[in-house]
């Protein structure tokens, strides 16, 4: 077999290798550029009580979790049991960010499904979401005592993500 005639075959094998790896990747998933950067500041009204407001400043000094959700988000229902579990474990304050939603729809959903959040902030027009680089719902951030984003979960939180990624990171951040 003369060498040059094997070249097309070798090139093809390399190509297939890349394609095979690519099958396991999601081209739509873009990692967050905000990891290890300060969580963007904001002040918005709370979902349940519009007269009260919420800002990340309120939780400086604590490790906490920000979960972006909406009543119209189907995938959010998938992760709801995980959020309930996290809230029961009391490992860190769980703050919801109700994203581009109607207050009444959101309150209804929490009443129906159960409310795992310490409180929910109401991001009516999505401006907070834009600052946080939210491009899909649900998304979840773990923020440390100094207000720096240390972890972002894109998509629903699964049991694996909770136990293998989030709990360990939260534990570690609490020690800092």
């Amino acid at each position: 077999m003369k060498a040059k005639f094997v070249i097309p075959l070798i090139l093809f094998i390399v190509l297939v290798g890349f394609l095979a790896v690519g099958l396991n990747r999601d081209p739509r998933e873009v990692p967050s550029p905000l990891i290890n950067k300060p969580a963007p500041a904001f002040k918005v009204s709370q979902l349940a009580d519009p007269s009260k407001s919420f800002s990340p400043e309120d939780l400086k000094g604590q490790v906490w979790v920000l979960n972006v959700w909406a009543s119209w988000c189907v995938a959010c229902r998938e992760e709801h049991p995980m959020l309930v579990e996290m809230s029961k474990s009391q490992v860190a304050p769980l703050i919801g960010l109700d994203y581009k939603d109607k207050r009444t729809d959101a309150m209804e959903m929490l009443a129906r499904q159960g409310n795992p959040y310490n409180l929910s902030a109401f991001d009516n027009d999505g401006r907070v979401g834009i600052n946080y680089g939210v491009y899909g719902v649900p998304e979840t951030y773990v923020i440390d005592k100094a207000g720096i984003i240390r972890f972002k979960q894109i998509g629903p939180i699964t049991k694996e993500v909770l136990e293998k990624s989030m709990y360990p990171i939260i534990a570690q951040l609490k020690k800092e």
Partner: protein
Amino acid sequence: MEYSMIPEIGHFALILALGVSIIQGVLPLIGAQQGRREWLVLARPATQISFVLLAISFAILAWCFYVNDFSVLYVAEHSNSQLPTVYRLGAVWGGHEGSLLLWIFLLTGWAFAVAQLSKTLDEFMVARVLGVLGLVATGLLLFVLATSNPFERLLPAAQDGRSLNPLLQDPGLVFHPPMLYMGYVGFSVAFAFAIASLLSGKLDAAWARWSRPWTTTAWIFLTLGIALGSWWAYYELGWGGWWFWDPVENASFMPWLIGTALLHSLAVTEKRGGFKNWTVLLAIIAFSMSLLGTFLVRSGVLTSVHAFATDPRRGIFILILLSLVVGSSLFLYALRAPKSTLGGAFSLMSRETLILLGNVFLVVAAGSVLLGTLYPLLIDALNLGKISVGPPYFNAVFVPIMVPVLFLLAIGPWANWKSTNLNALLKRLWLAAVVAVVAAILIPRMMGEFTILTALGFLLSFWIIASGVLQIIRQFKVGKPTRSFIGMQLGHIGIAVFVIGVTMVGAYQEEKDVRMAPGDTVSVGGYQIRLVEVRPAQGPNYQATRGTFELGRHGKTEEVLYPEKRNYDSSTMPMTEAAIDAGLTRDIYVSLGEPLEGNAWAVRVYYKPFVDWIWGGCLLMALGGLFAVMDKRYRLRLKK
């Protein structure tokens, strides 16, 4: 509630077809290898039966759409009782499962055609060609039956279907997939011929002569399919673009580039016995590109506006299929190609050299498109981050690579086979060169702006056209031109026309985004466009807002345009239906945007000079292919 059994018949036909394809694929190939005549002769009847079964299956799926059978899951997902009949039929290939069925149906169709039109071909060759096609069909049928069954039932049936994406409810979109697939899938024939010749060890001019008309025909369809897709995007998407270097567009363009190189390489192999290995390799690569494209669109590996709903299982299956088909072909190539004999020798200055050079550039161009398309995947797979590659890369890399091809295009037909005299060539071409230079300098100035890039566009296109005209004049002095000659001229001039269109639109189009209230006028490209009124309108399955615009020059109204913004019952996304006044030398394009305060609207108007030459050029190329296929030497064979 009674459910029809007809879809089950369609499903069953596919299962039968799988069995027949296995027979068609395995027995004739072994038979040819071992000289068993009784297995060889199974090839033709198996092919015929396969085709009939696929035709039945496809017809049944179409029937399910026609009668609105929403107990079939695929119909419920892509159709709707309010959908106009013609789009219900187009919806058959509007989604993954149905378009894949179309793919296989056309594959068996091509195989059937080969079976019917190969009576004078050596029966070992016939057995091998049909056998290879049978193996490919087997793979795809397995894929359909295992992961993508279009006849899957939805029980209990839906009251009504989800309907077809409004973007697809359009005549252009109805014809685009069948045309494209006829081309894509058609390259399987050239592929089968190449594999057959590698298997038999007989790589000769006869094989090339057989392959040529099949390859050309597939190429014609692919040209038309791509042109149709591009034209559709232009008039349907509302912002005047005609090519976006989207991964799926690239997936159809790469086989086209390789197919063009293949066409020319086959010519050399047939006439001079040369480039045999090149031609075989190109035939394998062309169809591999078709399969790769099929993989890219349906596996979720790349993001694209075109991509079908994805399922990782499907991706894995196609990847395995792709690996087996292409991997084994290239392995066979590595084994057998070194044994082929050399063709006729040729000197450095000859038609062979020019074609070879042109092909090298075409292959490099295809490679650059492949690299750009796959680059995001490669970078992600190597954990180097997420990037996207778009028009800036493709325009910067692809266009310069094509420049030499366009340059050589005009020279090739003048050069003699085997050896040609450089001085004689220069004597023939100096006039064309002068015309080209004059055009390159004059036309940009006439249009109002001179840049190097636009000058280059006119230089190359007029170089090709002038050379073509001179060739035609010379031919008429010698005698009646053959259809093959006419085909070549149309093909080459077609590309020049295409380049003129691209250059003109790229350099001299005008776009205006304005706020207009009834009575306002906007001018673009020397025309005045006046908004008369905007009123609601109603369609069969949509509500619309329709604008009435008067288009005119020097105070006289020449045309009235009615762009619309439509809200389909089945979709929350509003659709823009642009109004286009098309002409030989320009399109005026009016698109209705968002309503603004004070009874006004956002309106976008375009002046697009010579834009229809883009698709006109493609039509000419396809017509050229048609003439080439109808050349006498091929018809003689049919009569026997």
